[in-house]
């Protein structure tokens, strides 16, 4: 057993830290102050590309898929992700690149689709984004019950429905849209479709005003008789959902989506940890600068932050490590996500108290973290849904 990070990875963390401090934190603060994501022509995004960002993990035609979001395993991607979220969680989503749908595309897309949709991200000529649209105005937790429909029409699919809170949707080259091709089959009728920007029928983009994480856009949009080529159906190019028979095979669309979300859970948890660690560091700095550390109530809070944060971090590292070992981690991943998100919220909440009236000014980093962190217990499966998942595993909670 060993909880230490090796030298090589430590060096990478240090590089991430330098970039985060110099570029990511100021960009995130700028967006928060403006109450809007940075415009796509903002120089930050260019610098991000020059820095080597915005590229796909796919290595080109015929290449083996890489593991983890940075190609070095889940553990490594979680550790680097925590560091970058420390500097600004919102910017990690705002950054150009394939982002959220990358895992599912790598796992399920045909080679032709990878070339078409990931190819432009191999050496991007400009900042490019992609987007993953699952949630609908009528519900996000009940993933089997989405109302967006896909209907076959000759060599096309026609999509109709509405999505909401979708990261980077209006600036994305394409959006991977979850829709049901066979509602009677319920969740097994679900499929994912590449919908390219500019496709007639894709529109009504509305960027939401959020409490926090203002650095990236969360956008609602509609699909009105949106016609896309048949080979934009993820994975099963040219095959209609009706043709595929029931059971295991036909629920692949739904399952692959869910397995992507399972795999990304430690990453989301790690970003909550990053935010909480930033709140802790800011709290310590404030307490020291104002000579508060010896006050027992202040010290109790700081001790609590440190202890809970360490437990949460170890939980998340363990879930990532299990994934790298190819071992089941469903319970650990959900536990880490809910524990980290809730502890991070508590830390930010109590850190505001440490600031006193300074916290109410609206210009302290901790105040921003207090607003940002709330989303982490909502996105990619709420705290309640994580408990349901754990309940199924631990006590056979019925569906």
């Amino acid at each position, binding site marked *: 057993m060993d909880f230490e990070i090796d030298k090589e990875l430590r060096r990478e963390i240090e590089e991430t830290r330098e970039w985060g401090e110099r570029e990511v934190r100021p960009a995130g603060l700028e967006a928060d102050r403006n109450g809007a994501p940075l415009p796509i022509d903002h120089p930050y995004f260019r610098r991000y590309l020059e820095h080597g960002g915005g590229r796909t993990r796919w290595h080109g035609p015929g290449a083996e898929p890489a593991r983890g979001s940075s190609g070095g395993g889940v553990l490594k991607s979680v550790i680097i992700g925590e560091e970058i979220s420390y500097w600004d969680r919102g910017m990690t989503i705002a950054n150009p690149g394939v982002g959220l749908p990358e895992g599912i595309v790598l796992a399920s897309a045909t080679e032709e689709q990878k070339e078409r949709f990931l190819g432009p991200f191999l050496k991007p000529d400009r900042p490019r984004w992609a987007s993953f649209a699952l949630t609908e105005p009528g*519900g996000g937790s009940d993933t089997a*019950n989405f109302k967006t429909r896909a209907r076959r029409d000759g060599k096309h699919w026609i999509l109709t429905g509405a999505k909401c809170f979708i990261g980077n949707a209006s600036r994305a080259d394409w959006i991977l849209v979850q829709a049901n091709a066979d509602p009677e089959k319920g969740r097994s009728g679900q499929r994912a479709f590449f919908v390219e920007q500019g496709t007639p029928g894709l529109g009504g983009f509305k960027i939401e005003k959020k409490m926090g994480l203002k650095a990236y856009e969360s956008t609602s949009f509609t699909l009105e008789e949106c016609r896309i080529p048949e080979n934009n159906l993820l994975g099963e190019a040219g095959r209609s959902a009706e043709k595929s028979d029931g059971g295991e095979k036909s629920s692949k669309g739904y399952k692959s989506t869910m397995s992507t979300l399972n795999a990304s859970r430690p990453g989301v948890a790690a970003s909550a940890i990053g935010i909480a660690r930033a709140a802790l560091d800011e709290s310590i700095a404030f307490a020291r600068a104002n000579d508060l550390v010896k006050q027992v109530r202040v010290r109790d809070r700081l001790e609590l932050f440190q202890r809970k944060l360490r437990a949460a971090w170890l939980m998340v590292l363990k879930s990532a490590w299990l994934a790298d070992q190819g071992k089941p981690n469903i319970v650990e991943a959900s536990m880490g996500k809910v524990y980290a998100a809730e502890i991070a*919220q*508590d830390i930010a*909440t109590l850190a505001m108290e440490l600031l006193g*009236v300074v916290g*109410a000014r*609206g210009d302290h980093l901790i105040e921003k973290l207090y607003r940002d962190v709330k989303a982490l217990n*909502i996105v990619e499966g709420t705290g*309640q849904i994580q408990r349901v998942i754990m309940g199924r595993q631990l006590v056979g909670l019925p569906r």
Partner: protein
Amino acid sequence: MIDFSLNEDLELIVDTIRSFSNERVLPKIRTFESDRRVDGEVSREFAMAGFDRLELPESLGGSGLGMLARVLVNEEMGAVDPGAALALDRLGPAFYALEAFGGLNALAQFARPIVETEGKRAVLVLESDSTFDVEHGRVSGAVPWIPSGRADLVVILSDTGARVVEHGSSLQPLRGSGLRAAGSASLRLEHAPVIAQWQDPRKAAQALAKARLYAASLLLGVLRGASEFSRNYAMNREAFGRPIAHHQGLAFLIVDMYTAVESVRLLVHDAALKIDSGEDGTQHAAAAFVEAVEASRFIGPNGVQILGGHGFMQDYPVEKAMRESRALGLWMGGIDRARDDAGKFLE
């Protein structure tokens, strides 16, 4: 004898302020927030109904009501918009310091001109939240944040006394984390002449007790508002084939939030009754404030949680409640100081 009901007068007050807040304030909460002020028409209606001089003695043209009336009004206003509540009640908790130390004379001299001049605002600042120097009857210093865009009268309350300042202050507008409808600024005093000052630790404690209760009752309103909004939402939104409120994971959360609101309300009423009966309510007011702040840590974020992604968006009021409840909890010396005062009686 024990009686949890309100008398007719108080019931009427609650009904009136509830209609006012729901009909006149609620539709405009986001406008007030972005404008950082409440519009003149709403202010005038509030004043016409006498709510801007609720506790001012009748001899000075006020309604002469006590702490219980105050906390009932604040709960109703807080449930809709605590920032607007502060903007509309232009005397705010500064009233309590003037009342405790200077009695009728001070109220006539300092409080009445505030309510009688449209837009004027008095602010109470605690010395413990700020840094002040006093030299030759002039005070200099800075207050990091006040929930106001104006400060026509500044009352500085310390552990031992109070000072009143009218001129020599300047405000630097701030974005503010919450309560933006009240305005938000840092306050600087530069050799500001002190126009009245008093020393009396007992009276300082009484004034602080009332000011805390003022904040706690607004907080109570915010927490009730967030709890009720999210409960209704949960009854109407479905997931997995039933209202989300009927999933035990949410049902228990909702009932715990309801319980937390009730515990705050009872402690707030308890302290208000003590104060109105002339007892020393300082411990009870401090305890009520602590309870309210603790409940806000739980209810603020969970009000958002129950709405899922919608809760995080500014189309719904729960994210506002999460920010405002936090800001209110930092006000009036914050939870740590209140806890010290609530526990002092154990010594």
